[in-house]
């Protein structure tokens, strides 16, 4: 709805001031104890340092900010309705071209390492983003399609990473032999966890999966004989290009990548190769998801998400259906984990904390559950922006948390909400009515 431009909205200055003053008062109460007083280490216990100037600055900023904001809203006539506005409009415009946008994005991703501005650093970041894209797509199967809230996805990521690392280090298996195994193990853990808990309702499931994620981490930390505990696993072998290793001086009898192709050795070869590897893995995940959505099991997931009781009435076994979603999501998490392990060369339980699960879930939900492109956009936003904001170092996570709250308040359904069923009984003659 657009305010009528002819009637200039009346602005009640007194009310605005009162509102801003109230907000400032709340800000004062929030800031006073925790920012105003800082505990400092003192030889005799704890000392206190006061920072009332900070509090005053903060409260002043909140007062002015709130005043300005509500004044702007008042000028526009009303607060913008949630979920409407330019974004929805832009989306409606772009929607028919989504396929082309996706293709262009893919082309860009393929060409990225060869573009003039790309350095080793850009490719490194792009690889990180792609890991999260892949994890997001994997979790999207569970959360977006089947509607199961999984707060412990990092557990499967960890299982994948540790199964590759331990198999490779202990039994000298290569990356390509371990990759399917890592996926299998992760899927197995998914079933193991899923079997008892998938009968539960959404929120309970969330907490149990969260607990499971923490359990895996605690076990990794404490089962020292197998997992090497907090020291982690180091010396994880790097993947080879069809048996050609990326080393400057390969051992006797082994041809290295650069020798085989007759080019000079460069450290960037491996980085680029890893980039293409994760791009490929991510695209496989995407393709798989897109295709499986059209299969009966994929349709059952979406139906289950919409109405479980109706599904049961129609003879769909909810537990088995959810279990497949859980296992497939876990499998992709496992693949991503194996890739993570081979890329880092070193893993420890530190890498698999709850914050990772929260980030992946945030990517899926912010992107718009079920939307594959939304996941990419959200992953770029959530991973790239903090990466670029390294100077803000210590404020990074603070802003990350604030961004999650604000984006949710702004678009509760995610940036690109996708709840259109993949199948319809009677296909509509034109889109965009729903």
């Amino acid at each position, binding site marked *: 709805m657009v305010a009528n431009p002819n009637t200039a909205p009346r602005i009640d200055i007194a009310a605005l001031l009162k509102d801003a003053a109230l907000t400032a008062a*709340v800000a004062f*109460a*929030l800031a*006073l*104890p*925790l*920012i105003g*007083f*800082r*505990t400092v*280490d003192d030889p005799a*216990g*704890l*000392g*206190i340092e006061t920072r009332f100037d900070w509090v005053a600055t903060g409260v002043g900023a909140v007062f002015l900010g709130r005043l300005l904001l509500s004044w702007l809203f008042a000028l526009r006539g009303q607060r913008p309705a*949630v979920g409407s506005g330019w974004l929805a409009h832009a989306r409606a415009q772009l929607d028919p071209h989504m396929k082309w946008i996706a293709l262009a994005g893919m082309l860009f991703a393929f060409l990225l390492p060869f573009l003039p501005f790309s350095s080793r650093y850009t490719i490194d970041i792009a690889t990180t983003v792609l890991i999260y894209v892949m994890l997001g797509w994997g979790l999207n199967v569970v*959360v977006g399609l089947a509607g199961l*809230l999984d707060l412990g996805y990092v557990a499967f990521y960890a299982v994948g990473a540790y199964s590759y690392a331990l198999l490779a280090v202990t039994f000298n298996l290569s990356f390509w032999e371990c990759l399917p195994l890592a996926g299998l193990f992760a899927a197995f853990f998914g079933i193991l966890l899923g079997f*008892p*808990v998938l*009968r*539960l309702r*959404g*929120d*309970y499931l*969330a*907490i*149990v999966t*969260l*607990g*499971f994620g*923490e*359990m895996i981490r*605690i*076990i990794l*930390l*404490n089962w020292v004989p197998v997992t090497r505990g907090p020291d982690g696993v180091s010396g994880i072998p790097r993947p080879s290009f069809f048996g050609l290793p990326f080393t400057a001086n390969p051992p006797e009898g082994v041809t290295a990548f650069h020798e085989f192709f007759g080019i000079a050795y460069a450290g960037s070869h491996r980085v680029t190769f890893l980039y293409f590897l994760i791009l490929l893995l991510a695209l496989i995940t995407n393709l798989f998801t897109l295709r499986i959505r059209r299969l009966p099991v994929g349709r059952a997931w979406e139906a289950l998400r919409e109405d479980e*009781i109706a599904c049961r009435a129609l003879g769909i076994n909810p537990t088995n259906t959810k279990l497949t979603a859980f296992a497939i999501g876990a499998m992709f998490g496992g693949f991503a984990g194996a890739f993570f392990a081979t890329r880092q060369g070193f893993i420890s339980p530190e890498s698999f904390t*709850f*914050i990772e699960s*929260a980030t992946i*879930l*945030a990517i899926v*939900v*912010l992107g718009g*559950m079920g939307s594959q492109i939304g996941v990419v956009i959200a992953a770029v936003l959530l991973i790239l922006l903090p990466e670029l904001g390294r100077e803000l170092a*210590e*404020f990074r*996570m*603070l802003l*990350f*948390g*604030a*961004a*999650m*709250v604000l984006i*949710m*308040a702004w678009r*509760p*359904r995610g940036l690109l909400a996708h709840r259109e069923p993949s199948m319809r009984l009677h296909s509509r003659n034109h889109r965009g009515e729903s």
Partner: protein
Amino acid sequence: MGYFLQQLINGLTLGMIYGLIALGYTMVYGIIGMINFAHGEIYMIGAFLAVIGFTVLGLLGISYVPVALLIVLFTAMLFTAVYGWTLERVAYRPLRSAPRLAPLISAIGASIFFQNYVQLAQGARVKPIAPVISGGYTVFEEGGFTVQLSYVQILIWLLTLALMVAFALLIQRTSLGRAQRACEQDRAMASLVGIDVNRTISLTFVIGATLAAVAGVMVTLYYGVVDFYIGFLAGIKAFTAAVLGGIGSLPGAMLGGLILGLVEAFWSAYFSVEYKDVAAFTILVLVLIFKPSGLLGRPEVEKV
């Protein structure tokens, strides 16, 4: 026997603290059907306020324990209540009609925000405070092993029990309690009969936050150390306690807290300290499988 008794005492104390936090979860869940994911952080903020409060009072020279305790308790409850209110206002109210996942994400965001906010404002180091209340009774001695019941433990027990009674009265006898129960049953209907639903939900968060603040102060007194990360685990465990007792049921939250505290104490004492958190989660999973409605909860009937 002595060892067992000591663990029983420790476990009950821990359980009371879990129970206090669990009450906040169960109330919020009852009224808006959401897991208040940031509740653990509210408790952590309460604990930090206690550290700051005791340190400031110490510097001001107020060292008479009951006075210091009362001042800290009240300031912590007051300021934490503002945090609880703000949390609801910023992270939950704009999303009340949104899809179920949205408030959960915003609550996780708020939780990350609070953690980092406290870390930035107060530093990442563990904060130790000098014991405020020391000493205790010796319950009995046996072969050189003394069973201790410290004054802090007694304080925690008494305070928790007093709060439980006050709280039960609040829910059952006051108009706020009636409004809360009405909102729990049917929010739309409650607002039709003139209950200010927004205010009721806000107050629920505020009450939950004050209880968490008390738990935070108690934990500071009990352990003497606080860091910005304590809220996460305490939050999950308190939620486990709430589910164990039957979510939405207030006596259930307390009972769940006590059971969880005892299990943790005995598990650490007789099996392994490292896996005590695993024990807590295992219990959660077992309860959810065999009795999803919890010990004292009503089974939920899903209607079409």
